[in-house]
């Protein structure tokens, strides 16, 4: 018997008119886990979120959040769920401060003003707000990253069992994206809240315990991202940069005997996956020089869920091609 499931979609279908938006979608997150719901435009991730928040009823299937059937008990759902919309202007009163916003939302749940204010300060501190002055500044005068964190604070003010976030990293710089995801991890650890993150960014999965990738309304991948990473047939990965790199050069690198796969990650930059061998970096550099491709830089890298996803997509393409 596994842990209690806080987010669960079981064989869910959503049809709008004759259009099928979600088809036989099943995934879950156990209590205290962080789940990434990933997909491109039109994949159905926002529909999943709306189904989970009870805004859209599924045409078929079962949806439970924090043990609550979202269709049957809307009031319990509202108390068990925290929600962070994609755009801050949708979720925050810009003329109010971070604390005032949090207190307002807290009051809707019956939290006394003082308790809500104390809680808001506590969450904002975890989210990197260093001074009370910043917490009392109108949200309209804060930066994009700060607003995002205020929005997360508002979603957490009533200590929900489940926090759902819609594209929390969209529109943020790379370092801010990582900051926000790290803050969410801190929140997850501190409050043991189950978190569901909807994103189009595969990078998000690296921070999660479970990931579901949707494609055109269907589940493409669901599971633990680390388990997927283990399936990559490689022991090490290196990022190598070259002045110039053509299609034929990629094939030549791939033909090196201990190289398992090569992924282009930028102009003139590749990620090379090698078998588990001794001194892989030296051997790789030697082999590259031997075939006339001297890298301008080469560094060791982690094998990530994004790599797994890209490699499996590549394999599917090749299977279809051959």
């Amino acid at each position, binding site marked *: 018997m596994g842990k209690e499931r806080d987010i669960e979609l079981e064989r869910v279908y959503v049809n709008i008119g004759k259009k099928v938006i979600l088809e036989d979608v099943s995934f879950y997150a156990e209590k205290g886990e962080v789940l990434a719901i990933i997909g491109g435009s039109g994949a159905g991730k926002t529909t999943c979120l709306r189904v989970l928040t009870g805004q859209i009823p599924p045409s078929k299937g079962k949806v439970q959040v924090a043990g609550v059937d979202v269709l049957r008990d809307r009031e319990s759902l509202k108390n068990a769920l925290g929600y962070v919309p994609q755009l801050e202007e949708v*979720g925050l009163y810009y003329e109010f401060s971070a604390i005032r916003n949090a207190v307002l939302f807290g009051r809707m749940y*019956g939290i006394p003003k003082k308790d809500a204010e104390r809680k808001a300060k506590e969450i904002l501190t975890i989210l990197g707000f260093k001074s009370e002055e910043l917490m009392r500044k109108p949200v309209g005068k804060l930066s994009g990253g700060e607003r995002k964190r205020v929005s997360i604070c508002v979603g957490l003010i009533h200590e929900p069992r489940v926090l759902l976030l819609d594209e929390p990293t969209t529109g943020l710089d790379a370092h801010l994206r990582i900051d926000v995801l790290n803050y969410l991890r801190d929140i997850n650890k501190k409050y043991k809240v189950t978190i569901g993150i909807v994103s189009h960014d595969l990078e998000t999965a690296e921070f999660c315990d479970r990931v579901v990738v949707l494609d055109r309304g269907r589940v493409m991948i669901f599971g633990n991202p680390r388990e997927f990473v283990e399936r990559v047939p490689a022991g090490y990965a290196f990022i190598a940069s070259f002045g110039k790199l053509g299609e034929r050069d990629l094939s030549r690198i791939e033909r090196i005997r201990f190289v398992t796969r090569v992924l282009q990650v930028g102009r003139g930059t590749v990620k090379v996956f090698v078998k588990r061998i001794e001194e892989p970096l030296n051997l790789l550099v030697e082999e590259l020089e031997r075939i006339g491709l001297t890298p301008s830089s080469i560094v060791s890298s982690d094998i990530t869920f994004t790599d797994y996803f890209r490699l499996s997509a590549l394999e599917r393409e090749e299977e279809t091609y051959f």
Partner: protein
Amino acid sequence: MVRAAGSFMRIMSLVRKELEGIVKDRMALIVLILLPTLITFSLGATQFRVLTLADYAKVAVIDHDTSEGDPHYDLSQAFFWDMVANANDSTCIVFPLPSEELAYYLLWQGDIDAIVVIPFGFESHLASNRDPNAPVPVPAYVNVTLDGTDLESQGKVIDCLTNAIADFKVEFNFTRDEVLPAMTAVMGPTEEQGFDLRVTVPLIIPLLLIGGTMILTSQCIVGDVPLRRLLLTPASKSEAIIAKTIAYLVTSLLQIQLILGILILVYNYQPAGPYFQLVLCLLIIAFFGIVLGIFISVVSNSRLQANQYFIFAFLSLLVIELAVPVADVRNANPLHMAREAIVNIASRGLPFYDAMPPILGILAVSLAFFVSALAVFSVKKTLV
């Protein structure tokens, strides 16, 4: 952490949020405070207005009468001077012109507002009627041509002529078998009680209250984007509408105090009825503006659409009141009811019970819009 939050507590928190939002919204403050202040001051200032030449109706008199009849007076000239004597009270300027051609030219050019022609035979006809044996009295006409494009000047000229004729008849004893009106206007403006205000207040104040509240509340749902997120909390749509209504009633109450304060303290406006009843009446009128605005906000899908609906609704109220000459249609117009209600309380000084029918009418229309707003909002999708 979550406690059983009562609906009342949520509504009060939302009311506070609305009021804080209004205080921080410059546009709302302009509409709620600056606009009524400026309009009320302008309204009051009309009492002290200095009339300029442009305010007077210009009346040209052409005297063609050379007939004889009265041994002592030239009666056509006497009539002219009676017109001159009454001109100022009627806001007219009366002057002679030598020819009708010149007068018609000036009328077409818009330089004068009326032509009064005293035809030949005016005096002889009147004199013949003095003979007690005259078989049938012969009327003496003066031909009046008015500028049909200007209702205001028409009123002034007719007033001047009516008074001049009455004076002339009394002066020369042409009053045999005559019934002359001796008119007294009651409940109208008196100098002590704020001269023009008793006429202008019943029209301008409802316009100000209804228009001012409507323009703000027509944006209050469609423009409150974070409300969609609030509705994912235990707060309900009906609580949101009730809170907004209460918040705007509070601001309207302050607005009413401001308007009445200026009128009473600065311009000596004295409502005939009790102050409290007038405030209650104005608050009910503001309530109509609030709920109509909220209804507009609920049915609109964008701020622009809400603005367009607001203009349409407000102009409809105004046009029906000012330009539709069908009493039954006008009587059903809440703006007309508001005007009637204020006249009843502030000008006539009727007891509240007797002044009720138009107030009940406004309340009924307001409640209909309020219920409709709740119904429409409850089925409207508010996805985040």
